[in-house]
């Protein structure tokens, strides 16, 4: 069974991001929403961790949340942008959704 992991907390503020990476298996999908979208940017203290995750997992970011925060540029290569329709589609393509809050 495949899992869609969502994270909604900034990787700099809370441990949700690190714990999600600890639990997300190879082949699973991770969607960054709300304050977690900051993790999608190149050149931060967590961008290496995101690049490592992309090696064997799919990493997505919710574009409306990125736009809201004014940082829709300089994204890590391989992070895929989705809108809310794309978010819904991801929940249909995976068997379960785990929300890392």
């Amino acid at each position: 069974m495949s899992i869609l992991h969502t994270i909604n907390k900034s990787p700099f503020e809370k441990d949700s991001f690190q714990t999600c990476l600890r639990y997300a298996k190879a082949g699973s999908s991770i969607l960054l929403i709300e304050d977690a979208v900051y993790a999608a940017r190149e050149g931060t203290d967590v961008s290496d961790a995101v690049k490592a995750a992309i090696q064997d997992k799919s990493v997505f970011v919710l574009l409306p949340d990125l736009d809201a925060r004014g940082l829709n540029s300089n994204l890590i290569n391989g992070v895929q942008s989705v809108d809310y329709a794309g978010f819904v589609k991801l929940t249909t393509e995976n068997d379960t959704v785990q929300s890392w809050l």
Partner: protein
Amino acid sequence: MSDEMLNEEGNVQRTKKFMYVNRKAPYGTVYALESLEVVLIGAAFEQDVSVAFIDDGVYQLTKGQNTTDIGMKNFSPTYAALGDYEVTKIYVEKESLEKRGLTVDDLQHLVWEDEDEDYAEKDSIKVVSAEELGQIFADQDIMLNF
């Protein structure tokens, strides 16, 4: 009804695997208490229930909680009732304990009675690695994170 039940339309429906994941410390926020209320209510629904404690969630199970001087309700004795509600699969993440300098001896000793073995008392808590717990997560139908 071991792993099947009737749904609203009267059709047979597979029992679902519910996993409650607790990641927050008790008392600082209400999530631990209200999560426990969900687990207890959920136990009446004849589903396949598991509970996991990771990150600060492991603090929910510490022994000797005494809330007298903060004036809040001490709900920690309720964890001991989980066995009576047939909630017997309780996973505690090893790495989270270690990071906090805790061992399983710092936690309540939770047990359940196995009616298939003449009501033998068995441990409910299994200390597992994140790797093992991740495998268990991968097998669930419903993940409720608190």
